[in-house]
């Protein structure tokens, strides 16, 4: 198996400054199953936002193509 250098990596250390520890500490209060359930709830929310975005774009396109109908 390949040897992996696990000493502190200066690039990763820079990225660490932007990690939100408060989110991690909150997650650590949960069980692994609760963490996965939260992930799935987030996925569901993202899909709903994407669906709403698609619908809004369709409506905007339709309004641009048929301005009279969209006013009525």
């Amino acid at each position, binding site marked *: *198996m*390949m040897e*992996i*250098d*696990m000493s502190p*990596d200066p*690039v*990763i*250390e820079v*990225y*660490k400054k*932007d*990690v*939100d*520890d408060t*989110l*991690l*500490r909150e*997650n*650590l209060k*949960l069980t*692994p*199953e609760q*963490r*996965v359930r939260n*992930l*799935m709830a*987030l*996925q*569901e929310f*993202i*899909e709903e936002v994407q669906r709403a975005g698609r619908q809004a774009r369709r409506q905007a396109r339709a309004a641009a193509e048929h301005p009279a109908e969209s006013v009525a």
Partner: protein
Amino acid sequence: MTNFPAMLRALQDAGVEFIVIGGLAATAHGSARSTLDLDVVYSRSSENLERLVAALQPYHPYLRGAPPGLPFRWDAATLKRGLNFTLITDLGALDVLGEVAGGGSYEALSAFCVTLELFGTRCLCVELEKLIELKRAAGRPKDFEAIAELERLREIQEETL
């Protein structure tokens, strides 16, 4: 949405020997980042290939991103000829990996696992330290943020010990 519980149950019920790695393992360890697929390392024994085929067959696995109609047979012979497969199934995206950089095979990685109780199943998940090693070994710039977060998780856990 990826149906993680159903995927884990399908693998578990068929007796597949597998280890959860990747984003879902990170989530299980406390990561706040999102992931869309399940990544598992599977044993390459002949019996396990048959079990993996049987577990996923009902969910119509197909090569993710491949054009529709491309000939693809989900069977043990295909698994034997290949190694790592990125799949789309009726339950969502699933990567089944025969080997992983920094971790090797299922047998090598199984020494670095914890048992998770998830959705009524007990499955092996790579431990946090090894997960960091795997991410580092992959050497992908897109993983830098994830590695930083996992290392912070480890540090926070060490602080609270």
